């Protein structure tokens, strides 16, 4: 089973809020999970569940009005939340790489692709500009960009969406990071291009022996890519398990509902299962179980108390009162 030494990145009891007009509204509440070496961990949930902000907090890229009131983010045992800014700069980009959903808004339109990739290399290693550019070309080859010698001299607008996302991945991988954080990396892409990019991420992970934190709303992508899945709802982790348990034996009513509401290619159903209502805004988070108002099985207890994350089997845990802890299993 898991032991401490294989945990590469660990988030412990993270509580994060935004300061709005003098008041702090928490959007992330006691979120904990970890990523082991060589693992692809999926962070799943719908808009507003806090998945993106969790990943930004790992990179210390939070907006100014964000307040972390509790918790630790441990990278190789070191708490990133207590590190000085210059230490973070050494880690960000070198040890932890990140790719975003929309490559066009994350690439600088007035610099060439070559300039942008070599900038990171120059920042983190002692090489000449010429060497950095050669390394940039190597990185573009790594992500299967055709004629990389030409592409390094091009600007972002000259590339297609799929190519831009490849450039983003090349940039994120420029210094061989140990963890790649990918925030909805294929959401803006067409399906056939998405298949190419997912294939590339998986292949790179195997070749560079890195780990991936994949943030997505698409359960199909999760099943395709991930080893381990963390499901979030309204700022809480509601369920976590290995990918097979999540899809074959989901236990939290939200995970169950989400899986049943997907239209799939393989079956013909007359009506789709729906989850009534919508995701609440952070200032309206219910005081008990946050899913209770939308849950068909909610009891008085669910409405008034926050259920704990209960262990089901091995690492499989869910935050629901309907689950009674089995003895001797965890």
């Amino acid at each position: 089973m898991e032991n401490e030494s294989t945990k590469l990145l660990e988030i412990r009891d993270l509580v994060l809020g935004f300061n709005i007009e003098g008041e702090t509204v928490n959007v992330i509440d006691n979120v904990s999970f970890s990523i082991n070496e060589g693992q692809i961990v999926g962070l799943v949930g719908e808009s507003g569940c806090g998945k993106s902000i969790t990943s930004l907090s790992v990179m210390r890229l939070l907006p100014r009005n964000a307040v972390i009131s509790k918790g630790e983010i441990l990278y190789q045992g070191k708490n990133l939340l207590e590190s000085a800014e210059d230490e973070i700069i050494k880690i960000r980009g070198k040890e932890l790489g990140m790719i975003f959903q929309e490559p066009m808004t994350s690439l600088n339109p007035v610099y060439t692709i070559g300039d942008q990739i070599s900038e990171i290399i120059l920042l983190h290693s002692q090489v000449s500009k010429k060497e950095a550019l050669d390394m940039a070309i190597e990185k573009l080859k790594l992500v299967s960009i055709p004629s990389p010698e030409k592409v390094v001299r091009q600007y972002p607008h000259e590339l297609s969406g799929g190519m831009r996302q490849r450039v983003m991945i090349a940039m994120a991988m420029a210094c061989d990071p140990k963890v790649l954080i990918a925030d909805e990396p294929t959401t803006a892409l067409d399906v056939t291009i998405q298949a190419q990019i997912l294939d590339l991420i998986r292949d790179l992970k195997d070749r560079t022996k890195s780990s991936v934190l994949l943030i997505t709303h698409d359960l199909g992508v999760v099943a395709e890519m991930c080893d381990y899945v963390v499901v979030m709802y309204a700022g809480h982790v509601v369920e976590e398990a290995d990918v097979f348990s999540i899809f074959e034996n989901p236990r939290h009513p939200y995970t169950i509902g989400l899986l049943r509401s997907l239209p799939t290619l393989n079956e013909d159903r007359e009506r789709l299962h729906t989850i009534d209502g919508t995701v609440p805004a952070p200032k309206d988070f219910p005081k008990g179980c946050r899913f209770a108002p939308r849950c068909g099985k909610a009891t008085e207890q669910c409405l008034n108390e926050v259920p704990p994350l209960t262990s089901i089997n091995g690492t499989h845990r869910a935050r629901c009162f309907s689950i009674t802890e089995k003895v001797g299993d965890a």
Partner: protein
Amino acid sequence: MEKIMEVKNLKKYFPLKSGLFSSQKLYLRAVDNISFDLYKGETLGLVGESGSGKSTTGRSILRLLEPTAGEIIYKNKNITTLKSSELRNMRKNIQMIFQDPYASLNPRMTIGEAIIEPILSHGLMTKDEAMEKTLTLLERVGLNKEYFNRYPHQFSGGQRQRIGIARALALNPEIIVADEPVSALDVSVQAQIINLFKDLQDEFGFTYIFIAHDLSVVKYLSTRIAVMYLGEIVEICDKKELFDNPLHPYTKALISAIPTPDPRKKGNRIILEGDIPSPVNPPAGCKFSNRCYLKKDICTKLHPDMKDVGGHQVRCHLVKEEL
């Protein structure tokens, strides 16, 4: 089945600025010679990736875009040549629902005003009747009557799409063209809206043209599906037939590229190489030839015609026609 609309050789070309010294005029061929029939009460799914021309097709049908060539026959009339008064009348019967309802609702109009406006502007009812109808519509699409006086920004994405639907229903249309109506929504809300589409069709007998890039959503709703690639229909047939027996290599790749929510079915995908070419400069011969994994010599030379294989139409040289 009764044919309700016929699209014949529809083309929509957008002229591009040509270079200063170039005499050659360039066109972006968004929709390039497509034909299909629409039957009463069915849902025709139009699928394709960006640049396939699916949205342009939808907009051309309502003449929100003027087609370059071709005919759209509806009620024995050619929509492409209608005068503005006739066009106005036609649009009562064909309504559109857009992807982003927020962008298509006037932020300064309450949602009640937005829904009642088309009814009054077409002079179909008295103000009191229209009011009554609007309230019924709000309830029918699952919104509270009291929302009449609220503004679009006060609603969530799913609720806004319900408003967009109520507005499209206001004139009792026959055909509804829905352009990516659920792609901006979260999964749990998407399911609610898809069910609403299905219920409304059962209740009022609408004919839908459902445009989407997501095959699983289209599969769920459609009777027939047309797959588009670079402005052309490459395959069109019954939904079940398309998924059980896809014939075009592009359709096969598209179906296999969709990640399925089943971790035991990883891999075995057909991964297409390269990007979708620009519709300004499509490859010679078959437009899919530069990415096709089965391509033969003929594919880069000759543009394939539509073939009929037992009611299943496909545009590919490698598919043998039924004798």
